[in-house]
């Protein structure tokens, strides 16, 4: 198992070496990046939006219901909703969700291309298939994940506010005050930095599993599952490392 792990890591970095070569034609690359922004980013907006509103609402409600101590000011709800959302929920939990959606999509797409000889067809034509298929996906994700995170933060805070108003746990003024209280720009920088790393890891790992799929439909499914599992673990490990590196 250890041997296989090291083999995978070695092959992964070899793959990245080929992926990060100069694109054959910049006009084709540019078009592919925009296509991938649509597939990876824009098509994920609805999922991110729904998840963000609901989880923002749940965070606000949980904080509100647990505020038994009268010494705690009402704006704590807004403050904690903002902090939780920016520090962990929007960059990390959203990335874990996208690791499932985007990761399985990429892995099965490339895996199917592998089993149906489409990747061989690219290679025969003289196209660097890894560069052509993977680099636009990585670029698109690295560009668009931070945008999704900003979108998610905004919607979570709106979700929290809606829950607060509907449940009558506090006033709009105190919530907005809490959201703005003790604000540190570093927290947003940290969230966006994390999202860039997560985007890179999610897409590259999913592409790796897809590209090295063995022949057969079962193998495409297996690669897709392995990609999601590995991505989830990688995101969590990276979260710990980045938190230690950036926040402290």
């Amino acid at each position, binding site marked *: 198992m250890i041997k296989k792990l090291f083999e995978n890591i070695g092959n992964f970095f070899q793959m990245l070496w080929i992926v990060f070569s100069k694109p*054959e*034609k910049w006009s*084709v690359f540019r078009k592919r990046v925009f296509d991938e922004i649509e597939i990876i980013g824009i098509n994920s907006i609805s999922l991110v939006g729904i998840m963000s509103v609901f989880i923002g609402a749940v965070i606000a409600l949980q904080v509100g219901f647990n505020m038994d101590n009268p010494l705690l000011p009402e704006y704590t709800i807004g403050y904690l909703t903002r902090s939780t959302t920016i520090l962990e929920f929007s960059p990390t939990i959203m990335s874990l969700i996208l690791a499932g959606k985007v990761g399985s999509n990429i892995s099965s797409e490339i895996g199917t291309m592998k089993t*149906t*000889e*489409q990747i*061989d*067809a690219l*290679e*025969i*034509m*003289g*196209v*660097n298939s890894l560069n052509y298929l993977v680099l636009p996906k990585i670029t698109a994700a690295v560009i668009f994940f931070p945008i999704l995170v900003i979108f998610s933060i905004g919607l979570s805070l709106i979700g929290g506010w809606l829950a607060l108003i509907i449940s009558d746990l506090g006033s709009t003024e105190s919530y907005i005050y809490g959201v703005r209280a003790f604000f540190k720009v570093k927290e947003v920088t940290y969230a966006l930095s994390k999202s860039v790393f997560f985007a890179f890891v999610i897409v590259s790992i999913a592409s790796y599993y897809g590209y090295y799929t063995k022949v057969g439909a079962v193998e495409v499914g297996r690669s897709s599952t392995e990609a999601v599992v590995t991505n989830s673990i990688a995101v969590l490990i990276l979260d710990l490392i980045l938190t230690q590196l950036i926040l402290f």
Partner: protein
Amino acid sequence: MIEVKNLNKSFSGNHVLHDINATFEQGKVNLIIGQSGSGKSVLAKSIVGLHEPDTGEILFDGRNFLNMSRTQKTDIRKEIGMLFQGSALFDSMTVEENVMFPLKMFTNKTAKEMLDRVNFCLDRVNLSGKNKLYPAECSGGMQKRIGIARAIAMQPKYLFCDEPNSGLDPMTSIVIDGLIREITYEFNMTTIVITHDMNSVIEIGDRVTFIYKGKKWWEGDRQSILTTDNKEIIDFVYASNFMREIRENMTKK
């Protein structure tokens, strides 16, 4: 012309190709035939560089493919067209985009020039007007023809066809065989067809190479394959009752 010299290939200790020597001539349809698992697809994939041979030489008009850098190999590959067994069309692209793909990647033609070339290629395979269809909307025979159109889009010097008739009805197979032969003669290409379809051998095989258990067992033209007394070839060619009857009739005459 493509020359293969002393080619050996193994997978995890399993020796698949043994010391293959073969010459595939320009302007001719060169067939590689053999039973399933005999190594003919591995041979073709080794020639085009999808498999890395253990030892040997592969010469494309005298240029040794195996000694080349990645860039030089890429340049050679731009001279190769390949029709895959399952067509290997890009299913997210239309017919037009599939055929246009190599032109977009490797040429600086204008949109109109590219479209003209695509229309010429589609016309050549009798698929005019099917530009906007997706591969999933096309029959197996149409997909093969689109594959041929894409393979010839860059005016290749070498054409590889991996089991072009697999999964097709006899009528469509004849159409595909005819196209391969016509295109080979028209563009003076070096064409290599991997097949175990005896009809293709009789119809289009200018030169036939028989692979048996990973070795080049026999080489000749389509006439001599019917009259050879090589036991393995007789077992392969006359495997069906129908073909055995033909052989008996030929012997009686």
